């Protein structure tokens, strides 16, 4: 299960070196790591790079165990993709590391940067509808997660959840999601009314591209090291 609320808590409440860095530098760090994964042709530099990222995360007081777990999720599709290949073990290792290393960098980004700051940065690059849609989705997500949690508790208490009974569980989930959707739309309409009263006219405030600052040396340095390591090993 995606624990967005916990990720948001880590992002909003940390004070490590990564938290103090700008959004731009952390996005550049992610891009450098993705480029390093794309450019890598051997598993060894990526394995070293992955270990390096975990050390940087731990040194920056980020939740490195959770980041590792999050990055392993990316390995699941890679395993399925592996069925389509007839390759040496080294190629499978390379594929897995190509998937988990950028996922680790993304984990470091999201556990050190609140989503609104990321969206605010992206808003400078995206059309209005998409930027506003991202903000609205983020805003509604936590309300719905809370409602879904209450629904799950209610359904367990009332005996609507039976491990192993697919039909019963599916029926319960369908009704829950249906009610959730109706509530979500009603809330969005109410939200629309409130925002209209406050002067909303179809565009969101808070577009900020931002710049680099003195706290950015760690993400920029880590990203540069990842890319250099991968390119030097080719």
């Amino acid at each position: 299960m995606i624990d967005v609320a916990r990720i948001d808590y880590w992002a909003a409440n940390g004070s490590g070196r990564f938290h103090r860095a700008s959004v731009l530098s952390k996005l550049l760090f992610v891009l450098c790591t993705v480029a390093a994964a794309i450019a890598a042709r051997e598993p060894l530099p990526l394995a070293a790079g992955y270990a390096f990222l975990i050390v940087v995360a731990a040194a920056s007081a980020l939740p490195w165990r959770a980041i590792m777990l999050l990055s392993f999720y990316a390995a699941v599709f890679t395993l399925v993709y592996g069925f389509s290949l007839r390759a040496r073990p080294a190629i499978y290792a390379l594929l897995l590391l190509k998937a988990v290393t950028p996922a680790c960098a993304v984990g470091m980004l999201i556990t050190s940067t609140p989503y609104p700051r990321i969206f605010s940065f992206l808003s400078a690059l995206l059309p209005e509808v998409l930027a506003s849609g991202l903000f609205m989705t983020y805003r509604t997500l936590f309300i719905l997660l809370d409602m879904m949690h209450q629904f799950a508790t209610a359904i367990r208490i009332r005996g609507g959840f039976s491990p192993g009974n697919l039909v019963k569980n599916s029926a319960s989930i369908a009704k829950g999601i249906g009610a959730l959707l109706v509530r979500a739309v009603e809330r969005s309409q109410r939200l629309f009314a409130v925002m209209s009263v406050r002067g909303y006219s179809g565009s969101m405030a808070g577009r900020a591209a931002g710049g680099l600052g003195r706290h950015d040396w760690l993400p920029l340095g880590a990203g540069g090291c990842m890319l250099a390591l991968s390119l030097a090993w080719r």
Partner: protein
Amino acid sequence: MHIPDGILPAWLWISGFGLMAVFLAIALFRLRAMDRRRNIPLLGAVAAAMLVAMSLEILPLAYHLNLSVVAGILLGPSLGFTAAFIVNVMLALMGHGGITVIGLNTILLGTEAVLGHTFFFFLPVRMPVFWRAAVATVLALCAATLLLIAIVGISHVDSSLMEAGHEQVGSPVPPSAPERGSLVPFAVVVLSLGAIGWLIEGAITGAIIRFIARVKPDLLAHILHRQTCAGDAKRCPS
């Protein structure tokens, strides 16, 4: 469909971004006259519901829902595709799916939304709402799965043949023929597991749409809905 970064060749995911940009441009062009004040909150609500549904696992199969067809039916194809893009950006920012493959993932999820909407409207009106939505979902997911297999199949093509001698960057597979492997085992795994998923998603989507038709039928007669019916008022549920 959470394709991670780094496993597909660069030319493929760059093409995915290009195609996604074209489809998004078409969707945004079609939405230029929409009532943003009303539809952006609706877009946010449905995209958030998709993300919440994706966080729910159906035991004992550990399958998670997409609700992309529900989004397509409720929002229409243009806003449905936009919701698919937003969901994929959010998923990439949660570490569920790669950044470089946002384009391809959006095309896959957006295909489900657009096809689900299209099938729902072209299935006979006399069919019960549950079955219309369920059949539309199964057909849309089947098409999206075939598209996924096609993308993986294309990723096995040696890009040097297409790029006429340019260096291939980012391919996970060295260009030796025996290692390029076969698509068949992948297709068998994806189609066999996927078929179970289509049925579950179809049943749940059918139940959700039937629930909405009973509890809040005006959602199915949304103004966007009418706009995307291309003037065929008889097909729009009222």
